[in-house]
């Protein structure tokens, strides 16, 4: 059996070769396999092979696919003849990755690989069972030749109206076995014919090398300048968005994530497009700087305040490194088909985006001072990882790298380079404009901070003024409502004026001072509070008496006016307590009318009458039928000896299952349920994929999937 010989071959490899295998396929290491047969089983497993295929570049994949066309075992010379003479080196690499293995001087493929490559490698059809005489091609009719031409480079299948009267062109080809019949409507070009027409090569062209990088030239100085503008913009967005959400927290959608309306509002607020806001929100979310709170409000966390206390460079690099690693793709945000994908929602995870980002950036790192031409860059990366390639991911990565300031004018900046090389000092702090510690106040009640403000200043001004324009500088505007907000935050008019006098380089204009005084004078003149109940009495003496009554101290009365007391006790309790203290209170309703009779008490909860226990009802027909079927199956299963399916090892199980799938025979398996109880199932196995056996269960008559690790043993059905 092939698996065994694969294991044997691995066994025969040197320690270095095994180590090299682990290096190129690290997933084989976790967990460390117990022995070499376990290693071979894992190396031949679908998930591991899929990962291995994903790591191949286009050329390697072409060579491996070409190998799939050959009958095993095949020699190196055979492979070179159907592919290209340059394939030799790649064959060595494929061997090292255990994607081919040696059988004497020849090579074989791990058993599951062909499944993954597919039944029609490189668009070649199945092998023909008939002998084909290629000499007949000399006399091929023109329209038959046209059909062949269309099928040559795949896909090899073609549709016909009715196979019984296929028409002249196809009829001739079928007659001469250049086509074979697949089903009543499909014909297929046999592999031999395909290879013949392709002149013995599997692919028309092989691509041993990636395309050359091309792009617009940029000067590193300009790139860095642009990048630093991007970085300061990005940090400002993060800060601004968090502050904005702290003021007006958006509420998460029921399905998770940020609603379109909030997204638009935030985009307006920052003055950027929605994609950009979605991106900023996602990055903040990654950093734990914002979170969906328990009441579904999206709010900044304490980590945001900690983040804000760090240096600008740290702030930036912490977010960039999270972005580089994350599997969340903010570029997906928006409407995709009928569905709307929300930022911060559950649908943004995609495998492979992180490696795509890394490879994109490293490609830029190899081509400094160039703003890449997107098409070529996509082609280069498509060559490097054809299996995982996604053109949009690259576009998004470039866009996001620019937002982050890893790039400037499209080319990798000095800061991006420093970040990617893991350098300690990225130089961002030095390049960013120095924070300023003053503002300029003008007579039109606006204040201008001619640079980024220090955090404390920005916070203070943010509470007493509204921001009007953003960028390198900020323009704030003072208004009645903004000053009021400052007062609400606990500042006094004097404090605000002192602060402005201290921070403003220009004298505080008289109208502004007037405005602050005016608002401060009016602020808090009206007071609002809450009280549970009140006592009112026209006799002020009585009110004073109650207020000072020792017996009523527990009620903690407050005097609001000479005739009114309030306290935080329910009116009912208040009345009772007053009566105990031998006063004679009466209750009144909201409009001051006496309530003469005490209210009849009623429960606050909704009525919940008890359930009626009924006699047992006759079971429905469906339930009865199901019960009978279960009984019959149980019967059948028990008649199929052995009652207990013999235990088989995992490898045996897999082998046996494959064998039964091929033979299309029924079998009995022992299957452990989630509680560990083993039951016997009588099944028709159909296929195995991703650790799961798909089979028809005789008990239910339905297709069902069985997790292979849970199968305790396999035995024939009879």
């Amino acid at each position, binding site marked *: 059996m092939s698996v065994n010989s694969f294991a044997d071959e691995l066994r025969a490899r040197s320690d270095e070769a095994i180590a090299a295998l682990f290096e190129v396929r690290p997933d084989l290491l976790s967990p460390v396999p117990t022995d070499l047969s376990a290693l071979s089983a894992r190396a031949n497993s679908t998930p591991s092979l899929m990962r291995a295929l994903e790591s191949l570049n286009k050329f390697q994949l072409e060579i491996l696919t070409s190998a799939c066309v050959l009958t095993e075992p095949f020699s190196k010379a055979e492979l070179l003849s159907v592919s290209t003479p340059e394939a030799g080196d790649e064959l060595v690499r494929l061997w090292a990755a255990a994607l081919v293995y040696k059988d004497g001087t020849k090579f074989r493929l791990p058993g599951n690989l062909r499944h993954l490559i597919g039944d029609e490698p490189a668009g070649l059809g199945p092998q023909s069972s008939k002998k084909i005489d290629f000499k007949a091609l000399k006399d091929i009719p023109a329209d038959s030749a046209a059909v062949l031409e269309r099928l040559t480079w795949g896909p090899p299948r073609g549709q016909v109206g009715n196979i019984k009267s296929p028409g002249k062109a196809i009829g001739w080809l079928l007659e001469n076995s250049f086509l074979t019949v697949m089903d009543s409507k499909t014909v297929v070009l046999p592999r031999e014919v395909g290879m013949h027409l392709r002149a013995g090569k599997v692919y028309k062209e092989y691509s041993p090398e990636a395309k050359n990088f091309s792009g617009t030239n940029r000067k590193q100085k300009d790139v860095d*300048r642009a990048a630093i503008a991007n970085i300061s913009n990005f940090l400002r967005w993060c800060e601004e968005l968090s502050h904005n959400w702290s003021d007006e927290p958006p509420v998460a959608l029921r399905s998770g994530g940020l609603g379109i309306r909030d997204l638009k509002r935030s985009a307006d607020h920052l003055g950027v497009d929605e994609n950009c806001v979605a991106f900023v929100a996602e990055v903040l979310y990654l950093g734990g700087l914002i979170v969906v709170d328990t009441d579904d409000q999206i709010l900044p966390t304490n980590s945001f305040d900690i983040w804000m206390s760090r240096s600008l460079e740290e702030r930036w690099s912490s977010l960039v490194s999270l972005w580089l690693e994350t599997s969340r793709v903010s570029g997906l945000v928006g409407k995709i088909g009928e569905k709307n994908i929300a930022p911060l929602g559950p649908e943004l995870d995609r495998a492979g985006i992180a490696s795509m980002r890394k490879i994109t950036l490293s490609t830029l790192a190899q081509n400094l001072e160039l703003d890449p031409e997107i098409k070529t860059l996509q082609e280069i990366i498509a060559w490097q990882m054809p299996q995982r390639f996604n053109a949009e991911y690259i576009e998004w990565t470039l866009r996001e790298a*620019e937002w982050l300031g890893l790039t400037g004018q499209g080319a990798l900046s000095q800061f991006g380079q420093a970040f990617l090389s893991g350098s300690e000092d990225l130089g961002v702090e030095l390049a960013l404009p120095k924070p300023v510690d003053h503002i300029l106040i003008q007579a*039109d009640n606006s204040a201008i901070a001619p*640079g980024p403000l220090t955090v404390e200043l920005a916070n203070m001004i943010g509470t007493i003024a509204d921001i009007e324009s953003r*960028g390198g500088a900020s*323009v704030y505007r003072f208004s009645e409502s903004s000053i009021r907000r400052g007062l609400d935050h606990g500042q006094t008019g004097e404090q605000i004026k002192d602060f402005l006098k201290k921070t403003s380089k220009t004298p505080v204009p008289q*109208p502004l001072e007037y405005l602050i005084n005016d608002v401060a004078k009016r602020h808090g003149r009206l007071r609002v509070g809450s009280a549970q109940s009140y006592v009112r009495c026209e006799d002020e003496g009585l009110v004073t008496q109650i207020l000072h009554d020792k017996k009523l101290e527990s009620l903690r009365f407050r005097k609001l006016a000479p005739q009114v007391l309030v306290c935080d006790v329910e009116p009912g309790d208040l009345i009772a307590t007053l009566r105990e203290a031998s006063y004679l209170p009466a209750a009144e309703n909201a409009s001051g009318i006496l309530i003469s009779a005490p209210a009849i008490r009623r429960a606050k909860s909704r009525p919940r009458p008890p359930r009626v226990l009924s006699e047992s009802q006759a079971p429905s027909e469906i339930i009865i039928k199901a019960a009978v079927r279960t009984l019959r199956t149980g019967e059948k299963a028990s008649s199929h000896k052995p009652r207990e399916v013999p235990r088989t090892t995992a490898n045996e199980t897999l082998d046996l299952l494959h064998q039964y799938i091929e033979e299309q025979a029924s079998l009995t398996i022992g299957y452990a349920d989630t509680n560990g109880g083993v039951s016997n199932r009588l099944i028709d196995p159909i296929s195995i994929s991703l650790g799961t056996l798909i089979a028809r269960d005789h008990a239910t008559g339905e297709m069902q999937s069985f997790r292979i690790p849970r199968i305790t043993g396999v035995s024939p059905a009879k």
Partner: protein
Amino acid sequence: MTDGPLIVQSDKTLLLDIDHPLSDECRRSIASFAELEKSPEHIHTYRLTPLGLWNARAAGHDAEQVVDILLKYSRFAVPHALLVDVAETMSRYGRLRLEAHPVHGLVLVSHDPAVLKEVTRGKKVAPMLGLQLDDETIVVHPGQRGFLKQALLKLGWPAEDFAGYVDGEHHEIDLVQDGWSIRKYQELAAEGFWHGGSGVVVLPCGAGKTIVGAAAMAHAKATTLILVTNTIAARQWRDELLKRTTLHEDEIGEYSGSKKEIRPVTIATYQVMTTRKQGVYAHLDLFDAIDWGLIIYDEVHLLPAPIFRFTADIQSRRRLGLTATLVREDGMEGEVFSLIGPKRFDVPWKEIEAQGYIAPADCIEVRVNLTEDERLNYATAEPEDRYRFCSTTATKRKVAMALARQHSEEQVLIIGQYIDQLDALSEELGVPLIKGDTPIKERERLFDLYRKGEIKCLVVSKVANFSIDLPDATIAIQVSGTFGSRQEEAQRLGRILRPKADGRTARFYSIVARDTVDQDFAQNRQRFLAEQGYAYGIIDADDVLSANPD
């Protein structure tokens, strides 16, 4: 990073630090493509708009120059996206051209077939276009020249107009420079206009716009239609033209509410042009009455919307717009650009300053506390009556009178919106009142007395002060009147407040009722005036009253 005077914001505003040593140089450079939005004492704000950039393009600046200027003076790194946007916007101007074709008449030409395709797909544009002659040329239906330019601008592809102009009926006009001479910049402005064909000349108030108009007429030597804001302006134009040019009295006609003369040079008011009789514009024929060679629009920023519609029809005539600012309250800057033409000339800021554009006037807001009764009445008033109520209170009147007495030695104007209030003031102060229904003769008589100093104080209604040319005053007291448009406010201030010969600063008082809607309007006024660089202060009415005990 340089340490420049300019901060480029991501919302496309430019902040200019005017205390910076390079600020003058920078201001001159950016004026060609950015619009000055406000100019308070320390930081001036400019804005980059597509129109501003296209104006710069029309004046021969290219995107590279603009980007260079931004980079040169910018204090911080300029967002790349903004620079790309500038270049992109500027490259849109001139990709489409309107030209005269020897056979097909007016054609739309572009060397960029994709752009041509894009605009011909436009729903509004398509009906104006006819046969496509080749990849680059499409016939334009006759009479659509103006409308097409308007529509193309809306699509973001402003067309450059090379289709030329009719000469109009010849009429000999020359400048007569005896005892005066045309200033250099006026000459440049007229030349800039003449070479550009049509367009707008931006000159600050008092910089001699009439002379530029006269110089343009001397270039054209053709019959001219001049559209002005009001009758007084019409007479001023006539006087100037008589003084500065070879034109005689009988060559100049006035076409206004009272007179309907059509002469080789005709001066018409906006009002008469937009008068409708039974829903039809009654005086439209004026545009075709003579084969005009030149049409001059005075105060383009105030041009009423219907005039644009007429203007669209006369695109083959040369058009000159004169204004102090391109900013329009109604946002119709695009119409000015497409129908009258791009900016052809503007005077450097230095000149504006020398002309005293920022008048050294003090603006003082007097806050009045309403009495308790007044407050109660105000609180219970219907929303639509509230403004009238709070702005005509007795308390206000007292303060106004106190102020008038305080400045009894100076030329004082009291301005208000509500006639009852003005009547009362005029009666109590014993000074004449000019309102909407005061006959022109009477007005001119009173103004004359006022100018001579025989009357020290005048009460004028808003209607009156809007439609006539007020004489100079040193003190203005506004008792009521909403903050209207910015233009209105600026014009009023600019006209009435001139510094006294002895250097005393003019004062503009506005009396405002505290904690009412009046105060909200005052806030807008404060913001606008401060943005224009006026000094602004607030005082309490009690201070005024205690200084003037009766």
